[in-house]
């Protein structure tokens, strides 16, 4: 039991790295995703095509490759760009480039979710808004946006949970600097010391499971608030569906 508690304590700082990666990429990723979703649904063929291609490319290729690609790209630009600008210290740092790639990735996955929700916004409501003489911005603000976010929220919660899971591969693609180790790297390095596979990996898994549950709980609260006008409150269940 003591061993287990010590293990839990040892993994706590590592969990912060995973939480940092997820927390740093979710807000920006959310905004980008909404933009890409609107872009994909845009009547302008070029905007629509570009957003479509972006979403397809990032959903159709492994995150692992995306990490390697962007990191090596950043490395090769080091001498010509980052060094002269004096930013090479942090541009190449995993704590910066990790969230950047995660943002690009989650933007594509979430954009697909938001696009699906955008298409499911009831026609009659937008028509009613138009009949009231609302401007396009007013239509978006008071009809499209609230409907879209409510429809997309359960799937978006799911995406956030899997984004958190995806943070596990950040340090497999990027270098570990100054003992900044996330859960999985910690588990691996502790495993290499005493070869206790079951203990270290289960504790790491436990952290992932616990944080996923917390995410579900928090996003469930938001969903409750979003749905407060409904006579029967819909509930969210912890049932991760893999759509990534």
């Amino acid at each position, binding site marked *: 039991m003591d061993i287990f508690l010590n293990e839990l304590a040892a993994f706590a700082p590592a969990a912060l790295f995973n939480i940092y990666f997820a927390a740093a990429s979710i807000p920006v990723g959310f905004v980008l995703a909404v933009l890409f979703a609107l872009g994909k649904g845009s009547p302008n063929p070029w905007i629509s095509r570009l957003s479509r291609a972006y979403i*397809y490319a990032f959903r159709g290729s492994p995150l692992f*490759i995306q990490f390697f690609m962007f990191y090596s790209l950043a*490395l090769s630009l080091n001498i010509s760009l980052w060094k002269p600008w004096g930013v090479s210290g942090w541009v190449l740092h995993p704590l910066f480039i990790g969230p950047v790639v995660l943002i690009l990735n989650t933007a594509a996955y979430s954009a697909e979710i938001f696009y699906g929700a955008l298409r499911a916004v009831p026609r009659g409501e937008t028509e009613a808004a138009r009949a009231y003489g609302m401007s396009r911005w007013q239509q978006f603000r008071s009809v499209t946006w609230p409907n879209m976010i409510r429809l997309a929220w359960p799937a978006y919660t799911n995406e956030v949970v899997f984004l958190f899971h995806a943070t596990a591969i950040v340090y497999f693609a990027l270098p570990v600097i100054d003992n900044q180790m996330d859960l999985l790297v910690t588990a691996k390095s502790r495993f290499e010391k005493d070869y206790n596979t079951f203990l270290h990996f289960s504790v790491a898994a436990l952290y992932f499971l616990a944080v996923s549950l917390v995410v579900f709980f928090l996003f469930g609260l938001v969903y409750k608030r979003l749905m407060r006008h409904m006579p029967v409150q819909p509930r969210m269940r912890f049932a991760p569906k893999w759509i990534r």
Partner: protein
Amino acid sequence: MFDFLPQWMRDGLGDDVLFWLGYLTNGKHLTWYASLQFTVFAAVFGSLLAVTFGLLGATLKNSTFPPARLIGTIYASIVRGVPDVLFFIFFPLAFEQSVEWVMASQVCTPETLAAQSAAWPPCKEANWLLSTPEYLVMASVSLGIIYGAFATNVIHGALRAVPKGQLEAARAYGMSASQVLWRIHIRQMWVYALPGLSNVWMLIIKATSLLSLLQIADIVLWADRLGAPNFLKSVGLVHDDWRWRYYLVLFVFYILVTLVSEKGFNVLMRWAGRGILDESRR
């Protein structure tokens, strides 16, 4: 390099094209192309196992025996609750250690146990050295277990989507329960499961990029090796850091594979769904 080609052909192609032809067909590049076999093997074998585990899990989940139902449900939810990479790394290590533990109980003597100073394996004789083929099989099995959990849900849903009348008709014909299951239920289930299974296949394709984590020299590892700054004594610096170009190639490659599988699954779904009324496709 291409001295065997006739002069007119070499003139026609020009030095640039000849250089690139030579560069892209040198031994290291050929090894890179050949390493695609690991990815293909893991994808195909892994997805076959995933479907098998999915069928198994769905049968457990559907069973009338409560403990079996519990096992099926736990399998489907626990594996999805942790990251796939974690399981991907954990399973081969755990399996290797379990085998070594069993071996240790057979081959170790008190003397060899005492002689061993490292924490693992218990004694030197019980060490199981793994090489690429073993790792590849274990990688496929872990892919199968992870994505089998997702396939479990897909197949479980598909089994419920089969019209009840079909099963009742089969029962009315006097088929036994297992005959109904294997001849009618599971056969008709595929149409409803295909969209979900195509999704699982895409996930497995993307997960095959992780093979290099298990010391398999797959396309990702070779891209890294080939792209690293290349210096030859006879030629000088062939190229500096080209890794991002190689990864760009892989990026495009995976997108193309996704595109092709999507088209393939569309054809398959149209073929499997012929003669079946589907509300969503009208």
